């Protein structure tokens, strides 16, 4: 449960959202929700099918080594800050610096139940993957960034309480990416369906699409007059 809380916290605070206060985070998220659902219902007059004004996708772009390092550093820094807060036993003598020194450099098989290794870790890995996808990384690069972020957490932060585990090192990024790939495709289909329920479910399974870092939202304004038929496309960025 602590790992879920940690990942969710990192997820919400990951780049873009004002980091100073939780009030600012809440306000920004409210605005993001309003922005995500403000488009009116538009239906094709011939087919009577709903059409989405906003198109959702991913704009893959190059990131510099400096940008990669900065993004990883932000996630890594947040895990250092929040992990001790959600694992108070670090301060109660069950973990802490003594355990940290003992666990540092150890890599073991953990004995965790499938709920953790087969569900929680892949789920958190998938959301980390989608977070990097939302900020413009292509699929491979998002996998690589997920791999680095989860390995850094596993090898240098989580060892306050337990040694790094072989299963977590592999399954969080790899199964997370496999799951994230599926969620990515399902959410894009739902978000572009134009259906309100589809949009709600699409955003719910891929919440990175409502964060300000998301770079793949496009506003399409159709122009149906014969003299000036076409569409105006506008990339919608919120920074």
């Amino acid at each position: 449960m602590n790992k879920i809380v940690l990942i969710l916290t990192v997820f919400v605070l990951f780049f873009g959202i004002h980091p100073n206060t939780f009030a600012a985070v809440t306000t920004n998220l409210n605005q993001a929700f309003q922005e995500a659902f403000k488009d009116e219902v538009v239906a094709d007059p011939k087919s009577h099918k709903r059409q989405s004004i906003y198109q959702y996708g991913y704009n893959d772009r190059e990131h510099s080594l400096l940008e990669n390092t900065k993004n990883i550093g932000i996630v890594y820094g947040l895990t250092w800050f929040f992990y001790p807060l959600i694992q108070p036993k670090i301060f109660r003598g069950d973990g802490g610096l003594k355990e940290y020194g003992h666990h540092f450099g150890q890599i073991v098989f953990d004995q965790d139940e499938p709920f953790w290794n087969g569900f929680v870790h892949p789920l958190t890995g998938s959301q980390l993957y989608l977070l990097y996808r939302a900020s413009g990384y292509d699929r491979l690069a998002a996998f690589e960034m997920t791999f680095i972020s989860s390995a850094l957490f596993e090898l240098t932060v989580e060892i306050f309480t337990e040694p790094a585990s072989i299963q977590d090192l592999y399954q969080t990024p790899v199964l997370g990416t496999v799951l994230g790939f599926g969620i990515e495709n399902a959410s894009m289909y739902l978000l572009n369906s134009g259906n309100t329920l589809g949009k709600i479910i699409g955003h719910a399974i891929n919440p990175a699409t409502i964060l300000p870092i998301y770079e793949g939202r496009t506003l399409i304004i159709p122009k149906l007059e014969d003299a000036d038929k076409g569409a105006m496309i506008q990339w919608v960025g919120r920074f």
Partner: protein
Amino acid sequence: MNIIKNLFFIFLLHTWPLANAMSQEESFENNFNIKAGLSASRVFFNSSLISAEEDSSDTTGFGIGTSAGYKWNNWELLVASDILFGKLEDLTFQVDASKVRGDGSFRIFSLSPMIRYFTSYALYNRWNFYVAAGPTWSLHTFIITNDLGESNFSSKKRISFENRGGSLNVGLEEVVPFKETHPAFFEIGYSYMRSKRIFVVDASDFKDVKTLSKGESKGFYGHYFVARLGITLF
């Protein structure tokens, strides 16, 4: 020495992907790939811990296989994993001084760094033949749910073996021009493992599994044949 070795491993773990994080994903060669698929296996367990006839069992397992690799022209370096689940039938273990025998279930997690070689042979000019091999590290966990006899073992406890071994795989991969077309693969593998350590753990609280005892063990060994069917995701 162990810490230095692991720190070097951590360094390698991070520098390579970071340097490649700007890679072009459509490229098939000189690039990373992720593969995933479903697997079915026939698993054979043997335990020399008990000098009785009921010391072996064979059963069927199902699960998923994944891999993350880097492919050059014909060669590929990858880390592959199998996660298998199945029912357990009539296997006996010795836990401390007691015999534990019964039916239940098992799960296997295996991790294997491998080298894969794509030959120039292709079936119908469409399916490329390949071989792959490498050492394996695996964890076999057994849950026994009945006939616990006089032992103080319970269905909330698990016996797990940490194993070392190796695997050999042959397969066919679809020849396609672009990775985005998600080429399919089919492979058959053989994996052998022998135990190095045994653990008895208490999973009464699934949030906090406690290790009750652990020790060296070379008395458990097993092997499985596995068929995997999957695709290259990207």
